[in-house]
C-alpha cells in the first residue's frame, strides 16, 4: 500500500514557473490515497493564471499502452505545453517521463509507503516510495531504484562501459540520468545542493 501527497505548493508552482503545463492526474489504484481535493484546487489556480494547456484525470498511467490510449486526444495540448505535471505515484511519473523523453516531466507528488498489502504495480519502473520524490532533479529516472546504491548526489566511481559495478547487465542509473538531463538541456539540475535521504518520512506519515 502507498499514499501520495502533494509536494509543497511553492514547489509545484516553481516547477511550472512562467511556462505552460499539461496536467495528468492518475486515480487508478483504489488502494492508493490520492489528494484529490487539494490537487483540484491547486490546478484551478494554475489554470486561472493561464498556465495550463489541458488537464486529464485518468487511471493506470503506469501501463504504457493505457497511457498512450488516454493521451491520444490530448497530443496537441501536450505539444503546446513546456512541462508535463504528473499527479501520481513515482511509477506513473517515470512512465510518462519515458514516453516524453524530450519534455520536462515533473512529479507533483511525493510517494510514501503504508504498512500492509502493496497494490499491483508494473515491473518495468520501480518506485520505492522513498517519501521525497527526486524525479524532478533526475529527469524522471528514479535514483532510488535505478542506482544499486540508491545514490542521490550523482554517480559513484564504479560504472564501467556505462554498466553498474554491481551487475554488468544493468545500465548505471546515474549514467542514464546524466544522459537524460543532457537531452532535455537540464544539466544544471545535476549541480543542485547536497541531498540527504530522510528515512523518517514514513513514520511521520503514519503518525
Amino acid at each position, binding site marked *: 500500500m502507498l499514499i501520495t501527497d502533494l509536494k509543497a505548493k511553492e514547489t509545484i508552482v516553481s516547477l511550472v514557473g512562467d511556462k505552460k503545463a499539461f496536467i495528468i492526474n492518475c486515480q487508478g489504484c483504489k488502494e492508493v490515497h490520492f489528494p484529490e481535493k487539494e490537487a483540484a484546487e491547486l490546478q484551478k489556480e494554475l489554470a486561472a493564471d493561464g498556465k495550463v494547456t489541458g488537464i486529464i484525470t485518468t487511471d493506470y498511467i503506469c501501463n504504457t499502452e493505457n497511457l498512450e490510449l488516454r493521451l491520444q486526444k490530448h497530443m496537441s495540448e501536450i505539444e503546446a505545453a513546456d512541462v508535463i505535471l504528473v499527479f501520481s505515484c513515482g511509477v506513473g511519473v517515470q512512465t510518462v517521463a519515458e514516453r516524453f523523453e524530450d519534455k520536462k516531466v515533473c512529479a507533483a507528488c511525493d510517494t510514501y509507503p503504508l504498512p500492509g498489502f502493496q497494490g499491483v504495480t508494473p515491473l518495468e519502473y520501480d518506485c520505492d516510495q522513498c517519501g521525497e520524490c527526486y524525479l524532478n532533479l533526475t529527469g524522471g529516472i528514479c535514483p532510488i531504484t535505478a542506482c544499486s546504491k540508491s545514490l*542521490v*548526489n*550523482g554517480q559513484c*566511481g564504479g*560504472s*564501467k562501459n*556505462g554498466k553498474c559495478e554491481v551487475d554488468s547487465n544493468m545500465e*548505471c542509473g546515474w549514467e542514464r540520468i*546524466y544522459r537524460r538531463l543532457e537531452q532535455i538541456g537540464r544539466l544544471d539540475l545535476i549541480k543542485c*545542493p547536497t541531498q540527504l535521504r530522510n528515512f523518517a518520512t514514513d513514520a511521520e506519515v503514519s503518525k
Partner: protein
Amino acid sequence: MKITEAFERGEFVVTAEVGPPKGFHIEHMLEEAKTYLSGITAVNVTDNQSSVMRLGSLATCKALKDEGLTPIFQMTCRDRNRIALESDLLSAAMFGIENLLLLTGDHTKLGDHPQAKPVFDLDSVSLIHAVKQLEAGVDLGGNELVGEPPKFAKGAVVSPCSDSVDAQLAKMERKVAAGCDYFQTQAVYEPEKFIQFMEKAKQFGKPVQLGIVIPKSVGMCRYMNANVAGIHIPEEMIDELKADKEKTKAGITGVEIAARIIRECKPYCQGVHIMAMGWESKVPSLLEQAGLA
C-alpha cells in the same frame, strides 16, 4: 599535520596507501610503512577496501600516527549510517587525525561478505557535507557539539579516465560545493586523458593528486581492464610488460612505466598518490625515477 598545508606551501604532495591486514597483527605493516613511506607527506589507510572485511582504518591510522607518520583516514559509506560515521569522525579528531578521504565505497556484493546489508545512508557528497557541519559545531541532526569543533582536511576521489568522465566531473563539482579541499584520482595509465581531464578540472581550483598503481604483471593489467572501473591500460603498455618477463617480475618494468606516467602528468597536477598494493618496497625507487626523491 593537515595535507592541505603542504598544498598551500606549493609542494608537489606525495602520498601512498596501505591496506590493513585481515587480522589484528600489524607489526609487519608498520615496519614496512616506516621503512618505505616515512619520507612522504601522508599515508592513506583504506577502509575495508573492495568490501573485504579487514582491520579498521581508524585504529590503523592511530597506530601509524603513534609511529610518527601522518595518516589519512579513509571512510566509506557502505558499512555505517550517519550516526556511526559522525561518531567515528569525532573519534578521529580525538586521536589527532586531521586528514580524511571520503568515499561512497564499493557495493557489498563485490567483496567477501556479499550477504551483508549495503548501508549508503550517506554518500561521498553528503559525507563531505556532514564533516563540514561538524566543523561548524553541529551534527546532521542539527544538534550542537560540546566544546571546540573538529577541523579536518577533507579529501575525495575522482576518476579522470572514466568512460563517464562528464558525469564524474559533475560529481566532482558537487564535492567541491559540499566543501572538499583536495582530490586523489583513480589510477591513471593514459596521461593524455588525464591532462584533458585536468584542463576541465582546474576550474574548481582544488589540488588534485595523480593516482598511480604500479603495473605488476600482464595478468593484473588484463584483470583491471576487464573489471576495474575507470581504468584502461593501453596495449603498448601491456606489451612492454610482456617483453622481458624477468624484469617485469622484479618490478623494474612496472616502476619504469609508473615513473614515466608521473613525469608526463606532473606539470598538470599538484601531487601524486601511490596505491602500492603490497609493493610498498618499490615506492622509494619509483619516486627517485620520477624525480621526486
